[in-house]
């Protein structure tokens, strides 16, 4: 029983991380209408930044701030250099560019940092014991922080002027342009937020498992994409639910030795089943094409 609770808490915290990455995916998707396949690699860049920054400053909090800022800048740069020239072009063209950017980031990081694994000295907070239940502190921190961030993001989107402009752009870009919303700025801000969330996710990843390599971001990226789709791509609460669901499933299947090798297959099968039952994800808007 204790094991199950423990596993569940681990799943929640992993899910929180997935949710955070999925948020980036889903926001960029909803607003810029593109699948940013390079999103996973921003996590990787965030990881390397933390590695360098902790080495430089020693202070993890400062390093995290630096990583968030740098990833934000990278997200904006990526958008300006690679995606903005393609605004208005076929979304598949943008998809291919995103893949190209992803390759580029991976190989550049290998050139700069080498192929080896780097280990980031994140603070170790130890664990707390509640009866026979022992929980790692970082698990709790991740869980709480991700909930706080999600709530803050929801509030920001719902109540701030920029947030509402984002909703408008995602609903109808042309109309919002006519209403005087600067679509380019909104898209840039979306990329900024998405990339910053990725940096936060990368921090939590490193708190869990402090090692990074150039391909560090690709699997979390795909998993988070899956999470975003399970929740209904474009939907912010959907990304949270999808992420947490996926995290819990992953940790549980991993904890049963007989099915552990099939973890990926199980996760993806659940995804397919969910989509067959609800074709637009758990919280995706049900859209009926107007005739």
């Amino acid at each position, binding site marked *: 029983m204790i094991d199950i609770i423990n596993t569940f808490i681990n799943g929640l915290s992993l899910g929180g991380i997935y949710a955070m990455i999925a948020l980036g995916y889903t926001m960029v*998707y909803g607003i810029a*209408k*593109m*699948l940013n*396949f390079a999103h996973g690699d921003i996590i990787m860049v965030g990881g390397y930044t933390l590695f360098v920054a902790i080495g430089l400053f020693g202070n993890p909090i400062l390093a995290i701030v630096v990583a968030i800022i740098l990833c934000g800048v990278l997200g904006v740069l990526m958008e300006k250099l*690679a995606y903005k*020239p*393609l*605004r*208005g*072009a*076929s*979304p*598949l*063209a943008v*998809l*291919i*560019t995103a*893949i*190209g*950017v*992803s*390759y*580029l980031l*991976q*190989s*550049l990081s*290998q*050139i700069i940092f080498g192929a080896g694994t780097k280990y980031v000295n994140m603070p170790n907070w130890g664990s707390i014991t509640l009866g026979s239940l022992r929980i790692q502190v970082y698990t709790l921190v991740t869980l709480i922080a991700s909930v706080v961030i999600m709530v803050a993001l929801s509030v920001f989107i719902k109540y701030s002027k920029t947030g509402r402009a984002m909703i408008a752009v995602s*609903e109808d870009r042309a109309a919002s342009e006519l209403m005087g919303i600067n679509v380019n700025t909104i898209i840039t801000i979306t990329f900024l937020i998405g990339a910053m969330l990725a940096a936060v996710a990368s921090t939590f990843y490193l708190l869990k498992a402090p090692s990074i390599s150039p391909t560090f971001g690709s699997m979390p990226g*795909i998993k988070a*994409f*899956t999470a975003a*789709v399970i929740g209904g*791509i474009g939907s912010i609460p959907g990304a949270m639910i999808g992420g947490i669901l996926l995290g819990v499933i992953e940790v549980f299947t991993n904890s049963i030795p007989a099915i552990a*090798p*099939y973890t*990926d*297959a199980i996760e*993806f*099968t659940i*995804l*397919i089943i969910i*989509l*067959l039952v609800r*074709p*637009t*994800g758990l919280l995706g*808007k049900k*859209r*009926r*094409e*107007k*005739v």
Partner: protein
Amino acid sequence: MIKHKKNFKLKHYINYIGIGFVTILFSILSLTGNASISLQFLLEKIAISIILAVSLGLVVGFLGELSLGHAGFMCIGAYIGGKVSAMLEASLGCGISNLLISLIVGGIAAGICGVIIGLPALRLRGDYLAIVTLAFGEIVKTIFINTSAESFGGATGLSTPRYNREFLFIYAFIIVLIMLFIVQNLIRSKHGRAITAIRDSEIASRATGINVTRYKLLVFALSAFFAGIAGVLFSFSNYRVQCTKFDYNYSIEILVMVVLGGMGNITGGIISSSLITLLQVKLATLLSGNLAVLQNVLYALILVLIVIYNNAPRLKGFREKYSIKVLFNKIFKKKADPATVRDDEAKWDRVPTKINVDDLLSMDLVVTESVAKPDKGGEHNE
């Protein structure tokens, strides 16, 4: 077919002529012992890439559905076909009969999976379908990687007979020709028209009586069948089939070939798949030692620049002035009038590349209810 001779257009046959020329040229070179091993290996790879790109092009370019799991079908073909060929090796050896049987079995196995994955395609669209196909590919991979060593080889892969490299690429190119024959005729026929109609507007095609279900399943099955064929060829061109190869990255690579070639453009797909394969092999074999890290940077840069150059709306003027087509037309004094597509028959293999944003990648059709929306250009009541 004699009565159609007057309509003979080089354009119709350019793919056959191109591939046929390459096949004959290199067959002669190879059979007379003038082709190097690396050329033979390269040609095998190119043939497999062409089959993959053209078959994925059916789904993405002509049917207008995004598939990120093409490697999964290839994986099934490679494993099933490879297993069959390994079993037949004892009785038939590794000859043409073994090749044919394996190709058919592997292709059909993949085709059946194509129908299975086509079923969600009836319900899902856009990214949702894309992620289901991606998931399918990963599931297939995970299942094969966890098989026992006796059945499908497990982690070290399935050991399969390798076909004589002097002949395999010739057969592979003949298969490419057969595939082109089938795919091009299909696209050119009324069935192809129905498929492109579904891409342009599913609702209108239903209203026009097109059996959308049937055609979607058909295209998925056919595309998977050819991917399976490519997989079987792959198993014959390698000593081992290892499923780590067939991950989503490989599916994306095939998608890149399709997109760069121009969606719904078979000739473009052939050219881009050959050139990308060539580029990758050349980059890998040229940049040895410390330079190897540069190959991905170069590949990524080439990819991004080509896509931006070809698609950026701002560069449109530049493209129109300096593209090769304009140059070509200047040299041969041809009129290029984009508004009119002259000679409908000549354009059968190429449908314009622009697929509606919302049709392929997103589903923006947010509809509150089915009540009528304001009239377009009609009177404005209230």
